[in-house]
């Protein structure tokens, strides 16, 4: 058990190292233009260029640059943006994190509930028109660009039907902290939650249905039926439980990726000041240190989340040890 744990830990550390090297290479060792010019931003003066070159050590060899960058990101955490008047990058990312967590957490609750319902109903009625209709709806959900769906949702709830009884409660775009105004927090986030969840409801509903239908052929399901258990009990207590394995491991990965910045497009469309929108603003200002920081932090978060999922598996399922 201890050896397995240590092994996973070693792997995680290796992957973290690899990611930091990869991200560093993408930003500072891509063949082409001078990274100094990219960091200093558009139309930088020669003094700024010189300052950037000195600060990041671009006159030194690559490994030194890499170590210096990691130091700025994770140890001293004083990486600063040149475009944005020396704003410290790391605290900015940490300040934006609760917004992203609120968005992704709520969306995750919706997509888990909806996809379990849809997947189970479709599997129970497999072959019927309800099954086909639900799976088709899921496919449509998967096929919609999230930023477009968000804009259509804005059009409906903010403009066209905003004065009807259905959407008059929808506040303007933006974010209110949960601690300051819980009901406002909820009202601001409901539409973004649903929009972000649609894609995942489609994916997870389809995955769960496929797993459930496959489990109907398993021996333990036949045994459960042979014992005389009711169909719904067999489906919910025996089938659903084993079929949730793929579901849960998928969920860990997707949740971590979304918190790490994958919800960027949703945040941009709904004006939520989270990590993703920070990346978007940095993109518009060509603010490379900020983008690199968000990418690096999100990758680290994804790896750590995966390690936690692995750990939980290790504790729950003796076969993986």
């Amino acid at each position, binding site marked *: 058990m201890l050896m397995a744990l240590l092994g996973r830990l070693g792997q995680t550390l*290796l*992957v973290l190292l*690899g*990611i930091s090297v*990869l*991200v560093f290479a*993408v*930003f500072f060792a*891509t*063949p*082409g*233009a001078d990274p100094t010019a*990219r960091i200093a931003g558009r139309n930088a003066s020669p003094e700024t260029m010189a300052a950037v070159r000195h600060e990041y050590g671009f006159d030194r060899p690559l490994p030194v640059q890499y170590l210096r960058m990691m130091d700025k990101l994770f140890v001293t955490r004083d990486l600063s943006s040149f475009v944005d008047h020396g704003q410290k990058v790391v605290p900015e990312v940490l300040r934006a994190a609760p917004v992203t967590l609120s968005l992704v957490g709520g969306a995750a609750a919706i997509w888990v509930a909806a996809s379990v319902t849809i997947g189970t109903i479709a599997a129970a009625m497999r072959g019927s028109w309800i099954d086909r209709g639900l799976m088709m709806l899921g*496919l*449509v959900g*998967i*096929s*919609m*660009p999230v*930023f*477009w*769906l968000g*804009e*259509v949702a*804005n*059009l409906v709830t*903010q*403009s066209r039907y905003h004065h009807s009884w259905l959407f008059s409660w929808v506040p303007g775009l933006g974010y209110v902290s949960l601690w300051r105004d819980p009901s406002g927090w909820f009202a601001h986030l409901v539409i973004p939650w649903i929009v972000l969840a649609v894609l995942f409801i489609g994916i997870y509903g389809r995955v769960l249905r496929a797993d459930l239908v496959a489990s109907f052929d398993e021996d333990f399901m036949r045994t459960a039926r042979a014992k005389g258990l009711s169909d719904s009990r067999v489906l919910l207590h025996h089938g659903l439980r084993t079929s949730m394995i793929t579901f849960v491991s998928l969920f860990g990965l997707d949740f971590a*990726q*979304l918190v*790490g*910045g*994958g919800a*960027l*497009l949703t945040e*941009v469309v709904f004006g939520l000041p989270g990590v993703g929108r920070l*990346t*978007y603003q940095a*993109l518009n200002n*060509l603010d*490379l240190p900020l*983008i*690199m920081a*968000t*990418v690096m932090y*999100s*990758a680290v978060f*994804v*790896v750590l989340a*995966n390690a936690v999922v692995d750990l939980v598996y290790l504790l729950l399922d003796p076969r993986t040890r």
Partner: protein
Amino acid sequence: MSGGGDLLPAGPATGGLAASDAVARGPVAPGPWRVAGQALLRNPSAVTSMAVLLLLVLLSLLAPAYARYVAHTDPFMSDVAATVSLHGEEVPVMQPNHNRLHLGLTPIGPTWNPRADLLGADNQGRDVAARLLYGGRNSLLISFCAAILCIALAAMVGICAGFFGGVTDMLLSRLMDIMWAIPVYLFAISLSIVSVSQGLHLGPVTIRSDSLLLPIVIIALVYVPYAARPVRGRVLSLRRAEFVTAARCLGVPRRRILLRDILPNVSTTLIVLAPLVMALALLAESALSFLSIGVQAPAASWGTLIEDGTGLIYTRPAVAIAPGIAIVVTVLALNILGDGLRDALDVRETSRGRS
């Protein structure tokens, strides 16, 4: 891998059982590809999606003809002083707002008349319908090329990792894990941001920053881990298959096993993956273009069109809604086609259906 597929070393595994059935019935056995093709053609939703895709390609190919002969406009020239003739009278494309001072201009809305801004104009007075067709060219071209490139790279990575195993497998799989840990869109954004301002210079090769190659390469790279994983899994299971063991025992050289036994059997996996990867690539392209780091102005794609329409979403929603519908229809058709191909080529599905 189980069933009759393993008996057919050189050919996609699909046909194994079907072929032996046919042998029992008559002298001519239909080839495995033919069986799969017929299964695909019997699937109404797959046929519909193929027809829709064909129609979309044709429409976008006809973009210059539409712009020149039907709409009579140049969809890449901004012209805020233009007029269109509607019901016999000249109407300005950019109309003054209905506020008291008539400040600001709003582009004309959908007229449903192909000769005069069918879907309205954008905020530079350009015909949205014509731009939609031109945008379709870029979106379809980029996602198609990105899918082909991605599948080719994934095939190389997956086959090398699965077939050679050992250190090769470990290194490649770890590299894929590392790439996979970075959220897809963030990875694409990182690659775009460093290349979009000055282009890429790889030794003698220079990709200009407004070249379509840039989004193609970026999107292809980002989705390699997604496609490489199933390819590697398939190769691993093939390597343990009986016919490969038999070939090895006969002393067939590794190169030949790879080319004659592994590659044809992996090709079905690649074919099934292709439309699914193209669907993802199309969504990624539209997202990157929406964030203005994909297709660069004045060129259009469905993503840049949605971005153009963002500012007009409350006044002229058609500008953003139309390209979105185009994306949904295309991606949906690709996903349905992918499902159809999987059903037609999957050996387990066919053998279960026939037994």
